[in-house]
């Protein structure tokens, strides 16, 4: 499915909790240290000094700052609210467990997103494996779809809700038809609000390659969705 993306991400995983290998593929993204990166460094210092309670307290702020965007990415990737919730939780827990290996040369967001995406890819892989061996249950997220419909169109009539639901279903289907790299790049860039340069740092792909994947993904989606 998207093992190619996972490989690319792992190849660039400089000191990431998944591999623990030293930096080898990509250079860090230059630029001023962001607020969350500074906070991550502070938490790392607290953990190293053994001041765990304070570290946890500060980490709560870091979670609050990133969880919405992380949930959005995970949900779009997995199309299942419960699984996305777990993926986000796992990513944050993993970050805290390995905070001592965080290097400020990398923006925290890049580091965190890479961990999150790897977790989502693993879950998709596991889901595909399950799908080969078990009879698939009802489509993964009818309840989520319903919740989304209610949340999105509280005041809309049933027809509008039905159309919105159908449109989301078509979109999810179209995104699923993208290749692994195209999907990852599109998700991060478009749903995660990341620039191609940041996505390049997250995935280990060249910035120009990211742009190409993004362009192809957009073109394919427009073709599949008929320009909407």
């Amino acid at each position, binding site marked *: 499915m998207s093992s190619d993306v996972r490989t690319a991400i792992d190849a660039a995983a400089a000191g990431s909790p998944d591999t623990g290998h030293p930096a080898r593929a990509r250079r860090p993204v230059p630029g001023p240290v962001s607020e969350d990166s500074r906070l991550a460094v502070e938490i790392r210092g607290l953990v190293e000094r053994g001041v765990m309670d304070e570290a946890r307290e500060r980490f709560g702020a870091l979670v609050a700052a990133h969880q919405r965007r992380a949930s959005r990415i995970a949900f779009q990737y997995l199309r299942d609210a419960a699984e996305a919730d777990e993926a986000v939780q796992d990513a944050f827990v993993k970050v805290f467990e390995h905070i001592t290996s965080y290097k400020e040369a990398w923006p925290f967001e890049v580091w965190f997103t890479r961990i999150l995406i790897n977790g989502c890819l693993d879950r998709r892989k596991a889901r595909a494996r399950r799908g080969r061996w078990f009879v698939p249950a009802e489509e993964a997220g009818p309840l989520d779809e319903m919740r989304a419909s209610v949340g999105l169109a509280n005041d809309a009539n049933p027809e509008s809700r039905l159309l919105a639901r159908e449109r989301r279903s078509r979109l999810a289907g179209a995104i699923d038809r993208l290749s692994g790299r195209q999907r990852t790049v599109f998700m991060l860039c478009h749903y995660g609000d990341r620039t191609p340069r940041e996505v390049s740092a997250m995935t280990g792909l060249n910035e120009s390659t990211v*742009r190409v994947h*993004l362009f192809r993904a957009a073109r394919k989606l427009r073709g599949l969705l008929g320009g909407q």
Partner: protein
Amino acid sequence: MALAHHLHDERLLDCYLAERGGEIVDPPLAEHLAECGACGTRYAELVHFMEDLREGAAAESDAVFTPDRLRAQQQKILRRIEHVGRSARVISFPAAPVRGGITSGTPRVATRWIAAAAAAGLFVGAAAGLFLDFTRGDRQVTQLASARTDGSAPRPTRLAGRTAPAPPSSEAADEAFLSDLETALDRPQTRELKPFDALTPHVGLITNTIR
């Protein structure tokens, strides 16, 4: 200088990404977009499509991940990291059995000896009781025979003497004791003992039965 030919879709996407990221759009491209109606329309369509996708996805996610759910998620994460960095409590077990401690062989042997001793004691007790009754019975028969021979009235036996009514002073003392006992049993703090009391034969009851 504005470009003479129409822009490729890839360049339009670059313009969109630059604009969205707050970067400066390449000046020749920006000029061309401003001047060329066809490219301007294509660009507007692309922007509309991309923004529609983005906003739709964001609204869908936000409808599922409500602020309450995000708060719950945050609490779960904080609960899960509570144990990170805390060393697990290890309960150490002795590597070798303690010398002089309880071993598997000792209690079994001791139990066997106790059981054997109890059985032997029971057997000896029963045999001794039978022997005593037998000899006493013989003595009573002899005494009765001799009394009949003497023509005198038979003397009360020890057994008869044992069942004879106690002197009145002793009976009053027993009654007082039982009364005290009943009073004590009626107290709230000793009510828990009543079931045990019900299982125990009362002295008065036994005495009345014998009478």
